[in-house]
């Protein structure tokens, strides 16, 4: 087994636990940079607040907007970063965002074979499996088998495109709007869009069948 395969669970945060070696290193580097005025005293805390506001719910809003507003969809596909900035989302790295649209002919999947590049401004921090060897190694070689492990079976006549993220270019999948959602509000549509659908390993959820509606 390759050592990369280890799943490293962090020590549980019990609040008063003594910090480990690397946590002490993190605290020390941060404090030294503040003391030397390389970074501002409040910058890390403010950045943590920004990061906490970036969750898949934000991505879901963008997808839902693209589903209901064709002008926004066109701008989003033309320049993902500019359209997200128009939506009020700031980027904290010098990276571009390309949004990949799923259609009846094409299913998109994103990966980072080299490290862990991910559309973090939109989705927050990636799940561990995205950063581990099996997904990174196999997504580019046997995407259909990988998708099947997520319970997603793509018909053979649908092309699968795998996009390998880089430090300069991140991707986000625009899933297909599920059938039977013509009457849903933008907010209801957003609730169907999961993180994994925007990575491309699953489809957007189908709307719940409302048996009581007449």
């Amino acid at each position, binding site marked *: 087994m390759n050592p990369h395969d280890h799943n490293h669970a962090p020590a549980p945060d019990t609040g008063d636990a003594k910090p480990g070696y690397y946590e002490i290193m993190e605290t020390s580097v941060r404090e030294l940079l503040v003391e030397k005025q390389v*970074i501002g005293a409040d910058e890390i805390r403010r950045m943590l607040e920004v990061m906490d506001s970036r969750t898949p719910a934000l991505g879901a809003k963008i997808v839902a907007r693209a589903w209901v507003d064709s002008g926004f969809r066109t701008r989003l596909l033309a320049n993902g970063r500019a359209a997200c900035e128009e939506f009020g989302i700031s980027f904290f*790295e010098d990276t571009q965002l390309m949004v990949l649209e799923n259609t009846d002919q094409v299913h998109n999947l994103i990966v980072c074979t*080299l490290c862990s590049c991910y559309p973090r401004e939109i989705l927050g921090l990636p799940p561990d499996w995205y950063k581990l060897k099996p997904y990174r190694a196999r997504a580019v070689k046997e995407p259909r088998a990988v998708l099947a492990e997520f319970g997603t079976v793509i018909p053979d006549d649908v092309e699968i495109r795998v996009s390998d993220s880089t430090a300069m270019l991140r991707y986000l999948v625009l899933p297909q709007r599920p059938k039977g959602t013509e009457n849903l509000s933008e907010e209801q549509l957003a609730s169907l869009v999961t993180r994994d659908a925007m990575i491309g390993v699953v489809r957007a959820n189908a709307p719940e069948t409302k048996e009581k509606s007449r």
Partner: protein
Amino acid sequence: MTQTEDLLKRLPTEMGGLDAGPIQRVEHQYAPWEKRCHALANVLDIHKIVSTEEKRRGVESLGAEMVGKLTYYERWIAAFANILFQKQILTPEELARKMEEVEARHGKSPG
């Protein structure tokens, strides 16, 4: 391909196309220090001190053994320290002293 050829052509973090087992659908809640480490990365990027590319290279240059044995954010903070030494923003001595001080706050003897 000989084994040494493969070492030359493939970085320790380069995974694309290798054989590997089933997808492990594991996730964990990030520990507060891991999130702070990520925030530090973003702030250093904003200040044009450490770019994403430099960070990745910094992790790779830890070498295969450390890349294999350290956890994700352990690799990052180790790489940041090395990059900040190289850029003469911090010195190893300063960091060692500060780490003793931080450790002492928690009533733990250094080392």
